[in-house]
């Protein structure tokens, strides 16, 4: 029995050591190098993921990903910036639903851990693991094999992580009309609470601090949203929080960019038609020196008005 236990423990120990070595390989050799010559990085959740078609915008790389909390965005962006020093500007999505307490679930809920930890676990620090362990130890344990799987695949399988961490999402759907018709019938329960996220916003602050420490230009942005988007219900709270907690960071609000119902996938996501229209417009704004202007939001608002008039004509 003793011999068996010793042999088994030795086997497991060696196995864990080898796996740890692969994890280190993943940590230090994971390739986040972006091939294109981009100086602007966009990160965030599904709103920018569907809005910014970076193939139509010069010098921009969209690495936003659906369901991604700032917690994972922080570690992802760190790695991207480390390996792509030519990226001097980072646009971080900051919209109404990201301040809600429900978004903390995007950090440790089983579904999200299983999806994100394998990709970013190798780059996370002790504090991050402690948070996940405190909030969802079972989820964390369940996600560990996935992390090892990623590490092994990166070592042997020619897996390219930069192809799996986000990017423009070509959305075909258009269910805006039906959503508008039923808007009062199925209210989103997430909007019923005004509680503010603690952990998600903490990692947004960490991300901003990290980027500013590297002298990167950081902007908070809000992608286009439908006027009837339910998430606007916390607009006052959202603006107050932005002005108090993130007052030092410029906010570029594109939420009122005029689009037809047919150009939305739903009330908060642009479909490919809307993304094309918005991205071409945004590209023009960049060419006109948006990021260098003093009154950026005024310039944006004026451009939105102009675009609206042009489409009316």
């Amino acid at each position, binding site marked *: *029995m003793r011999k068996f236990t010793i042999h*088994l423990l030795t086997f497991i120990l*060696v*196995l864990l050591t*080898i796996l740890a070595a692969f994890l280190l390989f993943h940590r230090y050799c994971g390739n986040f190098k972006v091939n294109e010559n981009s100086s602007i990085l966009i990160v965030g959740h599904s709103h920018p993921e569907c809005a910014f078609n970076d193939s139509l915008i010069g010098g921009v790389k969209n690495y936003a990903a659906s369901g991604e909390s700032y917690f994972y965005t922080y570690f992802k962006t760190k790695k991207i910036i480390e390996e792509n020093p030519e990226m001097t500007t980072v646009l971080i999505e900051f919209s109404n639903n990201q301040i809600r307490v429900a978004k903390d679930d995007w950090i440790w809920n089983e579904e999200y851990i299983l999806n994100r930890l394998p990709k970013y676990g190798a780059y996370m620090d002790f504090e991050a693991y402690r948070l996940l362990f405190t909030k969802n130890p*079972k989820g964390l344990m369940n996600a560990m*094999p996935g992390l090892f799987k990623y590490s092994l695949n990166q070592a*042997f399988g020619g897996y390219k992580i930069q192809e799996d961490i986000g990017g423009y999402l070509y959305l075909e759907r258009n269910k805006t009309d039906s959503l508008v018709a039923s808007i009062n019938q199925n209210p989103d329960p997430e909007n019923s609470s005004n509680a503010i996220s603690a952990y998600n916003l903490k990692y947004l602050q960490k991300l901003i601090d990290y980027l500013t420490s590297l002298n990167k230009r950081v902007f908070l942005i809000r992608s286009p949203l439908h006027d009837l988007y339910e998430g606007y219900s916390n607009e006052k709270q959202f603006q107050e929080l932005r002005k108090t907690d993130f007052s030092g960071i410029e906010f570029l609000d594109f939420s009122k960019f005029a689009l037809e119902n047919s150009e939305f996938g739903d009330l908060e996501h642009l479909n490919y038609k809307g993304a094309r229209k918005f991205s071409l417009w945004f590209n023009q704004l960049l060419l006109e020196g948006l990021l260098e202007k003093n009154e950026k939001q005024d310039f944006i608002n004026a451009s939105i008005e102009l675009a609206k008039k042009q489409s009316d004509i």
Partner: protein
Amino acid sequence: MLFNSLEFAIFLPVVFLLYWFVTNKNLKLQNILLCCASYFFYACWDWRFLLLLVFSTLLDFFTGLKMQDAEKARSKKFWFWLSIGINLGFLSIFKYYNFFAESFADAVSKIGLQVSPWTLSVILPVGISFYTFHGLSYVIDIYKSRIKAERNFVDYAVFVSFFPLLVAGPIERATHLLPQIKKARTFDYSKAVDGLRQILWGLFKKVVIADNCAQFANQIFNDYTDHSGSTLIMGAIFFTFQIYGDFSGYSDIALGTARLFGIELLRNFAFPYFSRDIAEFWRRWHISLSSWFKDYLYIPLGGSIGGNWTRIRNTFIIFVVSGFWHGANWTFIVWGALNALFIMPSIILKTNRNHLETVAQGRILPTAKEFLQVAITFSMTVFAWIFFRSENIGQALGYVSGIFSKSVFTIPTIRPSNLIVLLILFMIIEWFGREEQFAIAKLGSKWKRPMRHAVYYLIVFVIIMFSKKDQPFIYFQF
């Protein structure tokens, strides 16, 4: 709690340590531990079904005692039929009631009557077919005076609910398992290592082979009308490997786990895809079920005594019943009947016991004749699995007609090269290990430990690399 889950990876070492370090001096305590652990394992699926399991165990335990103590044959018969009736009653209600109700409604609608069947919305309790068959064999053996009734409830409860075999077998016999439960068990290093090796191979079969084949088999079967004949053949082959990897993988984990506790379970698979005829296939596939049906149905029906007609009738009966055991669907019945048809020539010609030894025993390669026999048997099996996998007979027939079309001569549109290479490697390993209990039982047994362990590490890495999220075992639904 799935065998391929984190929960089981914690549960197993805890029970193992308690078993060998805390209760090892006392057999009674060891059996109580196994009983509690098994009930906990089962309750993790759904604690309400635990009540059903306990009831079924109590029923067979007490009716067993009543039969044993009965002085009159009539009384013995009463307790026997009571147990059989209640056991089969539960099985019928949970597993077959809706099928019969809907089939009846369908049948009467054919003669113009409209009946809306009263169906039950119940979930099938995990493993009910397995533990019911445990109980049935026990009661039948007592009735036939083959064994004496067990008087210790804990020992009997462990026999019925021992967690490695509880949800998907092997279907044990009291004559085989109960004596092991009643006997003091000592730790055997080589058996425990062998058990771990078998668990590792079982996990490989389940996680790497079955789950990865499932992805493509599901894709092809779900949209079978959109695929060419050649792709449909690929789909059927993927399912053939999926079901083998899934079920034999489960059995390997069960046998290996039991071995860690000093208990030997009945072998359930013996490299069935290397069979030279269907009769041999059925001696190598789900052995514990085939032998159960042979002992408790085929032989009581007269077996092979009484000439060809009796043999043909009895063979058909056990294959159809065996198909029906798998689930309440005509597809399973047709699958059973197809196998009966396939085996019929050898029954009639009395060649069904021609291939008792392993193919190419003692040789590396088979002869051309053996190779051809194996290939033909494999093809027949693949064909039969189409019916097993299909949702209904219409789909199965559509699938088969899709295969027998011109498009069968095109290149399959779905041909995952990584998986195909993996399957070929898997079959090579299985071939070289076919004379052992499981494929890697003796793999590298003469090598030095570091070399041997390197192979085990490699298997672990492949399991991790090919793993998907917790995938349930197919046979849990039966």
